[in-house]
């Protein structure tokens, strides 16, 4: 928004400020230079190398070194049709993605709205809620993934903390919820979705830290005057949420949706990614894993494009100028 200002000025007095604009453009290039250079020198070759390698096969040569044999699309074919697990893992991984994204976005929006309200101990709650952002990543995530101990201790407390599928320790059993909703004539799938969401709460909480931060930032940027005028007009909290907060925060929902997709498909706990990593180590750095991950990447890019396309049609942008 603020960028347009100097441009307007220079359009008025074009002759006088042209050199300043040029100088500023040069300064801009200077600032982004480290990124541009290393992007061109390191990143682009790496990407091309990775794509190129997925069409080759590595053959170790006796006495050190290796040989590259071009095989065309054979790696892709093998990944899709020969490997017994890849297609299945891909499918379940995508299903998981479809489940996780709405759950995480809805949960983080809800929590951000809660944490944005004035109340006793808000700072403490916020501090607790953002612990996973810092602490439950990388190594800790991989330790948790093969953790039998918390599962054991949880059998007393009854929370499934993402470590196993112990049915006995489910917080809410689907049957209970189904009974509850049976009279309300809500679809069975929805009931199952809600029950799954509650049982996966630990996972969802752990993975919605950054999203919560982004939503909180968005909520802070909504001016208090709008809420005040709403209150004066006699709107209830429910109406205020749907008529004011929701539209104003909708760009953030788009950002968070896309961020969640990216985050969950690049994270180490992702099924498909762990599968690909396993293939990488099993075949001793063979290129089958490259082919697999490029295929996965393409599919996820398509999903991102679809989500962004659909959602951006409904996003409300407030005109500031």
């Amino acid at each position, binding site marked *: 928004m603020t*960028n347009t200002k100097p441009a307007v000025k220079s359009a008025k007095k074009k002759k006088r400020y042209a050199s300043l604009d040029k100088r500023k453009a040069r300064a801009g290039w200077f600032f982004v230079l480290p990124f541009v250079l290393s992007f061109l020198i390191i990143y682009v070759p790496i990407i091309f190398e990775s794509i190129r390698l997925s069409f080759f096969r590595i053959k170790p040569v006796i006495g050190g070194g290796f040989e590259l044999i071009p095989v065309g699309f054979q790696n892709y074919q093998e990944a899709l049709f020969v490997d017994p697990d890849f297609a299945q893992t891909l499918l379940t991984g995508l299903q998981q993605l479809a489940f996780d994204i709405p759950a995480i976005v809805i949960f983080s929006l809800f929590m951000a709205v809660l944490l944005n309200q004035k109340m006793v101990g808000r700072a403490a709650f916020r501090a607790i809620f953002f612990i996973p952002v810092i602490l439950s990543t990388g190594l800790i995530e991989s330790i948790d993934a093969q953790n039998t101990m918390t599962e054991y201790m949880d059998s007393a407390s009854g929370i499934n903390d993402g470590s196993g599928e112990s049915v006995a320790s489910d917080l809410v059993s689907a049957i209970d919820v189904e009974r509850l909703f049976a009279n309300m004539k809500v679809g069975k799938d929805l009931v199952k979705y809600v029950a799954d969401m509650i049982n996966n709460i630990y996972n969802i909480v752990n993975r919605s830290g950054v999203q919560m931060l982004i939503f909180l930032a*968005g909520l802070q940027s909504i001016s208090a005057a709008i809420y005040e005028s709403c209150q004066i007009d006699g709107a209830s909290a429910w109406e205020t949420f749907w008529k004011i907060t929701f539209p104003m925060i909708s760009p953030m929902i788009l950002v968070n949706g896309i961020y969640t997709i990216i985050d969950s498909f690049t994270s180490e706990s992702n099924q498909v990614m762990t599968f690909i990593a396993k293939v990488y180590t099993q075949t001793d750095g063979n290129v089958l894993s490259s082919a697999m991950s490029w295929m996965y990447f393409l599919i996820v890019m398509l999903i991102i494009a679809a989500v962004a396309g659909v959602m951006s049609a409904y996003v409300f942008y407030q005109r500031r100028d």
Partner: protein
Amino acid sequence: MDAQNMQKAPTVMKESKNKIRVEFERTPLKERLKAKFISTFFLQKFVWFIFRLVLLIGISYVILFPFFSKISGSFMAPEDFVDVTVRLIPKHFTLDTYKAIVNDLGYWDAFINTFLLSLSTALIQTFVCCLIAYGLAKFKFKGNGIVFLAVILTMIVPHETLRLSLFMEFRYFDILGIFKLLGGGVIESLNVLPFTDINLTNTFWPLIVLSIGGLGFKNGLYIFMLRQFFRGVPDELEESAYIDGSGTLRTFIQIILPLSIPMMITVFLFAFSWQWTDDFYTTLFFTTQKTTLMPDIISIPKSLQTNYAGQNLYYSAIRNTCGLMIIFPLIIMYLFGQRYLIQGIERSGITG
């Protein structure tokens, strides 16, 4: 309301030169309490308050409980894991697990190495990302949009995809073929350097090179966050600095950077702790056992290896203790830094 109407007008008396005393009849306490507490408005608020509190405490519990269980497990002796009566409070309190991790696995080596690595990359990343984000946010130049798209691209492509070629790049490191040319790889007679490529693996250099270029772990996200923040900084600040004769770089360092310290601390916290717990780059670039890093200490210490009924549980407790010891410095850092984390994010005012 009625009670107020019945009141007499307050009387004002002058006590001394600068002091007055106002006397009025207060509504009785009972009436006041009644008006305050027995109303639908209050009831609504109260119910919401309880609901919110229960929900927040419940979810806080979900977040914190694994930590508690890990902490209690770390103090348990092997006997406790087969004892059914032991849940969270250890019966045979012991520090053996910690001692074994520190002595057998070389915790302090890993700590110092990881600390140096994380600190250097996090400092470089914070500064470089600020630079790039500032350039993207405040300067209009041809290709601005393309550069930003490139940043987003680095964020989207999962590093798992690039694993093999990343390794190759730094195993046979070469800048645009210069080393190969000078080392006699292209023309035999031109042999200035004794090598044609450099093996950068098992050093800090791959990560530092990536950080300098803003290509490090999650740097796309930092650049995005900082860009949003810098876009919210009013242009007038820089304009006045320019008028006073300051150059762009000086303006950036003397005016913009001091302004954005909370945001920089946020990015630094992220960069430091994500690098600290990272196991992708560290296992990729550090292939030998020479430099012990944090991922290397997640294993079962030799002195604790046993063979009994509760073995699996015990080993998983040991691994969890390793995890606890890994994140312990981060917890301390978080306690000091979380204020800035939330402040910085709130000020960034990210808007789609």
